[in-house]
C-alpha cells in the first residue's frame, strides 16, 4: 500500500504543484492519477520515489515513511516506467531489461535469464533480445520499458503516461495486455495519465486532480461516472459519461441473443436470399467466425470477399453493454454480431433489444449496484 499523508509540494518561486494531498493506493491494485496539465499528477508520482522531494507531509510504503529510507534502495523497490520508455541506447533489449535486476544485486547470468523470460511475458519474441532500442517501434520500446521495471520484481510500480506516446491501435493493445499482466502479477501500481478514458479503463481507483494540485475526487471508475463529486469532476469525466457507464454493465445476464442465419463465401445470392431474414446476410468462414455482411438487394451471382461490408464491430457475450450497443449500432443490418471467446458466432442482437436491456439494467439499479 502507498499512502500520501498531507503531502504538499511548493516551489521556491511560490507556485504550489501539489496541495495537501492525502490518499491511499491499495495493495495489488491500480490507482490512476488523472487531471488536466498543471494539476500536479506527475509531481505527485515523482515524489513517491523522491525524484522530487515533498515540501511537507509524508509518503508511506507499506507503513514505512520514504523520507527515512536510503534513496537508492527506495527506488530499487519501485518499478519505474516513463512515457518514452527511456531505454538505454547502448544496451540491447535483454541487457536493458536486466539492468534493474543487476541493480538489485542479482548475478549477471541470472539477470539475463530473468530478462529473457520477461521478454515473452510482455509479448515480445525472444529474437528481439539482441536488438537495440533504435530498431524497435514505440510500442515495442514501451513493452521493454515495462519488462525492465518488472525485472527486479518490485512490490510497487510507478507509470508516468506509459501508453500516451504510441498510436491509438497500439495503445489499446498495450492497455489490454497490461491488464492481463496485472491480473497475474498483482503489483501495487500508481499510473499517471491525462486521458480520462484510459483512467476509467485501467484504474481500480481513479484520483482526479485539479489545477493547483488539489485532489477533487478519488473513487472507483463506476462511482466517478455515476456520482461525480462536483462540476469539475463531472466536466472532466466528460459529456458522454452516460454512454461510458455502459462499459461497467455486464451484457450477459440481460440480453436475448437470437439465432442468425449465415452463409459461406461463394454461395449464390439466390440461395442466400432463401435463408436470409431480410436483405442482409451474415457471411462466416469455415470455423463459423463472422467475416462481414452482404447486401442481397445489390447482389447477384456468388458472394465474393469484395462484396463484404466490414463496418460492423463484434461484441463478446461476456462483454459490457457498451460493446454490445456499439455492435448493434455499427452493423449495417441493425443486428449486432455476438461472438464467443474464440470469435465464433454465437448469434445476433437487435438494437431495440439492447436498448431494452439497458433500460431494464438501469431500472434494476445497474445490476444491484448502489
Amino acid at each position: 500500500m502507498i499512502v500520501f499523508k498531507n503531502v504538499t509540494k511548493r516551489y521556491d518561486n511560490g507556485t504550489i504543484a501539489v496541495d495537501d494531498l492525502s490518499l491511499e493506493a491499495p495493495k495489488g491494485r491500480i490507482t490512476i492519477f488523472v487531471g488536466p496539465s498543471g494539476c500536479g499528477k506527475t509531481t505527485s508520482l515523482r515524489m513517491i520515489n523522491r525524484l522530487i522531494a515533498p515540501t511537507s507531509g509524508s509518503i508511506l510504503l507499506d507503513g514505512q515513511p520514504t523520507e527515512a529510507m536510503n534513496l537508492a534502495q527506495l527506488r530499487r523497490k519501485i518499478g519505474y516506467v516513463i512515457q518514452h520508455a527511456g531505454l538505454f541506447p547502448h544496451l540491447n533489449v535483454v541487457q536493458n531489461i536486466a539492468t534493474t535486476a543487476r541493480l538489485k544485486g542479482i548475478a549477471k547470468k541470472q539477470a539475463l535469464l530473468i530478462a529473457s523470460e520477461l521478454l515473452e511475458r510482455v509479448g515480445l519474441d525472444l529474437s528481439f533480445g539482441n536488438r537495440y532500442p533504435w530498431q524497435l517501434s514505440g510500442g515495442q520500446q514501451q513493452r521493454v520499458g515495462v519488462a525492465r521495471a518488472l525485472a527486479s520484481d518490485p512490490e510497487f510500480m510507478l507509470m508516468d503516461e506509459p501508453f500516451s506516446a504510441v498510436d491509438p491501435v497500439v495503445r489499446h493493445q498495450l492497455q489490454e495486455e497490461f491488464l492481463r499482466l496485472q491480473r497475474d502479477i498483482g503489483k501495487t501500481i500508481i499510473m499517471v495519465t491525462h486521458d480520462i478514458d484510459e483512467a476509467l479503463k485501467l484504474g481500480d481507483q481513479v484520483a482526479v486532480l485539479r489545477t493547483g494540485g488539489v485532489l477533487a475526487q478519488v473513487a472507483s471508475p463506476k462511482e466517478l461516472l455515476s456520482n461525480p463529486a462536483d462540476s469539475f469532476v463531472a466536466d472532466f469525466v466528460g459529456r458522454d459519461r452516460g454512454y461510458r457507464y455502459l462499459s461497467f454493465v455486464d451484457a450477459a445476464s440481460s440480453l436475448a441473443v437470437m439465432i442468425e442465419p449465415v452463409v459461406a463465401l461463394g454461395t449464390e445470392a439466390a440461395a442466400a436470399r432463401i435463408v436470409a431474414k431480410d436483405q442482409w446476410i451474415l457471411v462466416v468462414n469455415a470455423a463459423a467466425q463472422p467475416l462481414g455482411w452482404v447486401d442481397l438487394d445489390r447482389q447477384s451471382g456468388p458472394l465474393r470477399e469484395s462484396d463484404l461490408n466490414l463496418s460492423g464491430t463484434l461484441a463478446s457475450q461476456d462483454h459490457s453493454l457498451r460493446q454490445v450497443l456499439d455492435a448493434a449500432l455499427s452493423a449495417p443490418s441493425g443486428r449486432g454480431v455476438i461472438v464467443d471467446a474464440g470469435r465464433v458466432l454465437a448469434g445476433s442482437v437487435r438494437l431495440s433489444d439492447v436498448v431494452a436491456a439497458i433500460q431494464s439494467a438501469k431500472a434494476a439499479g445497474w445490476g444491484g449496484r448502489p
Partner: protein
Amino acid sequence: MIPWFTDPQHWNGSDAIGLLIGQHLIYSAAALAIALLIGFPIGLYVGHTRRGVVIVAGTANALRSLPSLGLIVMLVILFGPVFKSDLAYLVPCLIVLVLLAVPPIMTNTYAGIAAVDPASVDAARGMGYSPLGVLLHVELPCALPLIFSGIRSAALQVISTATIAAYVSLGGLGRLIIDGLAQRDYYEMVAGAILVGLLTLAVDLAIALASRLALSRGLVR
C-alpha cells in the same frame, strides 16, 4: 621526389625518417595524454552537472584562437632561464600542443554527455542508479561517439601542429621542413609535408577503427 625517399642517407643518422616519425609521435602522444587528463574530467563534470557551461565554452573558444607559433616562441623565452636542459624547449612545445588539444576533447565530452536522451537519464535515476552510476553506466557510454570524435580531431590538430617543435630546435618531422627551408632544399621540405600528411591520415584511420570496435552497435547505425 622518389629519389629523395629512396636515398639511404635519409633513413640513417640523426635525421633518419624513422627517428623523426618516432619523435613526432612521442610529442603528439604526450600532448594528447595530458590534454585527455585535463579536458575529459572537466567535460564529464560540466556535462553531468550542467555547471560552468559558459566558462567551458568561452575558454575553449579562447584557446582555439591562440596563435601556436607566437605562443611557443614566447614560452621558450619565458622558460629559457628556468630550465637548463632540452626541457626549456620541450615544455613550451608540449604546453602549446596541449592547449590545442584540450578544447575539442573538453567540449565534445561535455556535448556528448549533455546530448544523452533525458528520458534515459530520468529512467536511470528513477530505477535507483546513484549519480556516479548514472554517469558511468548511462551518460558516459552514450557519449562515447562524440568523445571519440573529439579525440580524433584533437589528434589531427596536434600531429599537424607538432611540426613547430622543430622551430625551437627539437625533433620531429618539422625538422625536414625547417631544415629544408634553411638549405633551400625543396625536395626535403615537400618530403616533410608529405610525411606529416601521411602520418595524420594513418593516425586518423587508427582512431576511427578503434572507435568502431569500442562503440556499441546501439549507438552507431
